[in-house]
């Protein structure tokens, strides 16, 4: 994979206003939630009702994953949107493939650019969120753990790659983004499925949270390493399918 291709894909991604919306949202949502949740958490702790003490701070990281999802989706959907009303069939993907015609190398470069952006975003968000938690709730914040922060960043990166591969399969950002946002913020279909079968806890969008959270709403405990491996396997399989389809389909 050439450095030129990765830099070009970075330029493309960071040149999109929607990508910046994802970046900014991802960066500020979790730290903002610390302020919102702090009074209630403090009250719960003072009355002895704080059940998930180990996850104070870390729980807020969940909302920021929407930023990673947006980035994963727009990295691909921007290729498929029409370039203008004058030529509704024309898309940026044509320019992309004219400049970088080796499709597997293009996908690798695009994925690498996405991973870089999301990893930096995830690391910054996690550090700021945990620092703020320590500042606002010094008595209750769990000790800093580089491993847990790393796991949270890995979760974000894998989620971004999940959104990337699913958007590549459907070639449409609106469907993918709606499903992901609804599933992760309004009603989690995956979580509801865990009520039917515990195996649903291994679905790709929710298993990864076990990497850095110690308590889960479904009351199913999956060891962090198992969770990481399971999510990596899901993402690898979906990426492989997306790459296969991308290679076969006409542009």
């Amino acid at each position, binding site marked *: 994979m050439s450095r*030129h*291709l990765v*830099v*070009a*894909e970075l*330029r*493309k991604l960071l*040149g*999109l*206003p*929607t990508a910046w919306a994802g970046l900014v949202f991802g960066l500020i949502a979790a730290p903002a939630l610390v302020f919102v949740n702090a009074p209630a958490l403090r009250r719960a702790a003072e009355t002895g009702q704080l059940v998930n003490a180990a996850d104070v701070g870390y729980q807020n990281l969940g909302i920021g994953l929407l930023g990673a999802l947006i980035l994963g989706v727009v990295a691909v959907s*921007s290729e498929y*949107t*029409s*370039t*203008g009303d*004058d*030529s509704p*069939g*024309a*898309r*940026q993907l*044509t*320019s992309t*493939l*004219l*400049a*970088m*015609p*080796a*499709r597997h190398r293009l996908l690798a470069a695009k994925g690498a650019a996405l991973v870089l952006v999301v990893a930096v975003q995830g690391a910054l968000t996690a550090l700021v969120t945990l620092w703020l938690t320590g500042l606002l709730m010094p008595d209750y914040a769990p000790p800093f753990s580089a491993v847990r922060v790393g796991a949270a960043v890995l979760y974000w990166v894998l989620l971004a790659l999940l959104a990337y591969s699913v958007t590549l399969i459907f070639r449409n950002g609106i469907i993918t983004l709606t499903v992901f946002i609804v599933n992760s913020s309004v009603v989690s279909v995956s979580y509801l499925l865990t009520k039917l079968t515990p195996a649903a806890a291994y679905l790709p969008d929710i298993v990864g949270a076990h990497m850095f959270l110690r308590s889960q709403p479904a009351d199913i405990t999956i060891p962090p390493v198992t969770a990481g491996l399971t999510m990596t396997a899901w993402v690898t399989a979906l990426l492989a399918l997306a790459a296969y389809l991308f290679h076969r389909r*006409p*542009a």
Partner: protein
Amino acid sequence: MDPWFDASADRIRLTPRMISIDAVSRPGILHDVSFEARPGRVTGFLGPNGAGKTSTVRILLGLDRASSGTALIRNQPYASWPRPLTVVGALLDGSGSHRSRSARAHLRWMATSNGLSRSRVDEVLAIVGLAGEAGKRAGKFSLGMSRRLGLAAALLGDPPVLVLDEPINGLDPAGIRWMRTFLRQCAAEGRTVLLSSHLMNELASTADDVVVIDRGRVVARGTVTEVTAGHDTLEDAFMSLTGEPSEAAW
């Protein structure tokens, strides 16, 4: 006289093939399409809408696949060129840019992907007359400006081969005249220009060689003079070759 402009058959056979399309087929669309384009000449690829021009061009550029046959640029498939923008400049439908990107930002990522310098971006913007609009979002461009931006992208790598699909669609008369002069100049510099169009009169005044395609089959190829032989105009020749009533061709 520039040797490239010697339209004699011997001279054409001696020049190297920059674009060679050999027995390309795609079920229901293209049937055994073969032709070549050579340096220093504008090759017009002529046919009514839906005849298979865009499909052929997209196969040549590696965007679509042929079920059989080969389409090569300098004896290699497009996708095998590591820095393709330095070999072929292509202009297809639309500006090629995401609508929220400025013209300059679009050209910059393209330049980066092929290891081209930043200064080249400003050069091509000046060539196509968009220097003053470099910071404007591509989504706000008129059709004519979009075509110019597409052409600027095609010229980024200063390529010896240009492949242009319906480049004058949407251009005003001044734009058409500019494009014609520009393409003639490219050929005069020794570049290979493949130009698809359904506008016969336009091709007659721009092209040296013509390939006529109809319903996915090549029905004639040769110099403009050869293809027009026996008819008053290229348009008459086209009508007689394709059996199309003139409205259908437009």
